[in-house]
């Protein structure tokens, strides 16, 4: 591996790098600070968890910070949501073919343990949900829950969630949005999108530390706790307290990490991403890869800066290996934990090479990546 300063990091859809400026210092300070138990010392301690919740709530358009459950990842949040809903034998969960395993595996577990039915809406060849098929399924069946990944982690296609969830609500479904790949890049407002629950992660496009994420839960949705244990409050009860978010947050929280996430959220708020510039870089990368002979999955309209492709004559893992070893370019290759989407993209069974940019990616880096990929095709 080249030294860090010479790395071109295009794996931001897995985890972002660099992080929000100053994050390392904030994490170190938070770790070294005497841990005062907020609930016991009153005003002597700042409620760091509430501070982070309030920032997230503001971002998602939630009316109260208590609607935000802090978790270690969006996988954790999605498990809380899917396994915590009172689903029973025969209930239908409608999801899409572009879901991540963080949704698929909890759903398979629900099918195995509770005999829940699952249907997947197909996507088109760029990973966007087939809305006609979605409507057809909704006409013939009434899902209890509709789950949609806001943006494909494979192709970057942003889904028409407002339309999908609007239709789902007309059928009485509870709606769950996986915003792992979208929060920090595109607007995610619970009311606007008609999302009853939103799972998110802190370490991707929010530029926060790993080990952070959360779940927005609207007041109408009641979740059974998936994990139970100590809460520091209501210790006399044999079950988890009913009040949110305590009900879903047993155990000692990773407060330093959430202090870090709060820092990243403030930094992003004060330094908004130049979306036009990011779109321009994505477009340049897409065109450059096409010119080099790559089969690029070009996503029209709304998209994130994740871009997938294959190279004729090369296995995707070889491409990743060579880019890393020869050119210091870090990317991701394979199925990207989204196995159901690839037949629709025409990339089964091996998957794709994925470049995922961030607000810190430069034009020079994009040109280097195009040049390096072109060397493989020459």
């Amino acid at each position, binding site marked *: 591996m080249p030294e860090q300063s010479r790395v071109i990091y295009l794996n931001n859809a897995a985890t972002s790098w660099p992080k929000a400026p100053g994050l390392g210092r904030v994490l170190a300070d938070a770790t070294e600070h005497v841990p005062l138990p907020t609930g016991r010392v009153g005003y002597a301690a700042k409620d760091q968890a509430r501070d982070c919740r309030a920032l997230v709530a503001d971002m998602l358009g939630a009316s109260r910070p208590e609607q935000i459950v802090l978790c270690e990842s969006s996988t954790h949040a999605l498990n809380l949501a899917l396994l915590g809903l009172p689903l029973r034998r025969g209930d239908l969960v409608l999801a899409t073919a572009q879901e991540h395993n963080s949704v698929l595996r909890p759903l398979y577990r629900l099918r195995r343990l509770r005999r829940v039915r699952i249907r997947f809406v197909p996507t088109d060849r760029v990973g966007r949900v087939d809305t006609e098929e979605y409507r057809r399924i909704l006409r013939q069946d009434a899902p209890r829950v509709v789950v949609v990944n806001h943006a494909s982690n494979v192709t970057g296609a942003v889904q028409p969630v407002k339309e999908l969830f609007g239709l789902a609500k007309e059928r009485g479904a509870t709606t769950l949005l996986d915003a792992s790949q979208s929060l920090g890049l595109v607007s995610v407002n619970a009311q606007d999108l008609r999302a009853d629950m939103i799972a998110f992660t802190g370490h991707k496009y929010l530029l926060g530390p790993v080990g952070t994420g959360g779940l927005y839960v609207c007041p109408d949705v009641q979740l059974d706790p998936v994990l139970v244990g100590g809460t520091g409050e209501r210790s006399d009860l044999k079950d988890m307290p009913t009040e949110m978010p305590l009900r879903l947050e047993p155990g000692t929280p990773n407060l330093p990490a959430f202090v870090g996430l709060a820092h990243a959220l403030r930094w992003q708020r004060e330094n908004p991403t130049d979306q036009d510039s990011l779109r321009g870089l994505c477009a340049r990368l897409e065109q450059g890869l096409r010119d080099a002979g790559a089969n690029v999955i070009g996503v029209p309209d709304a998209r994130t800066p994740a871009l997938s492709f294959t190279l004729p004559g090369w296995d995707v*893992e*070889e491409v990743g*290996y*060579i880019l890393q*070893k*020869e*050119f210091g370019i870090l990317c991701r*290759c*394979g*199925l*990207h934990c989204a196995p159901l989407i690839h037949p629709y993209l025409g990339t089964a*069974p*091996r*998957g794709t090479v994925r470049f995922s940019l961030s607000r810190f990616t430069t034009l020079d880096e994009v040109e280097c990546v195009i040049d390096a990929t072109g*060397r*493989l095709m*020459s």
Partner: protein
Amino acid sequence: MRFRNKKVEGCFDYSAIYEYRLEKPITVTLIRILGGRLGSLQYFADLPRPFFRIQGQGGTQIRGIQGERDFQAVFPSRGRPEGKGALEAILREL
């Protein structure tokens, strides 16, 4: 030749990827020996450092870069012990 190996991340359940670390950098001679003993060799000289790919009988694939101490071997689930054993026997002989 002495070597170490460790399993690395892979997306597919039908194969296992191992990274091998050798005691000295990979030479063109070593590449030719591995290619000759294990299967068909493809050698890409036009990259900054030559890349090689060996398609072994039984589905084993080897890929690496001349001058590095590490290379990767992908073993299919069927015949994994045999493929891994064959590669490591050659390395030990060298």
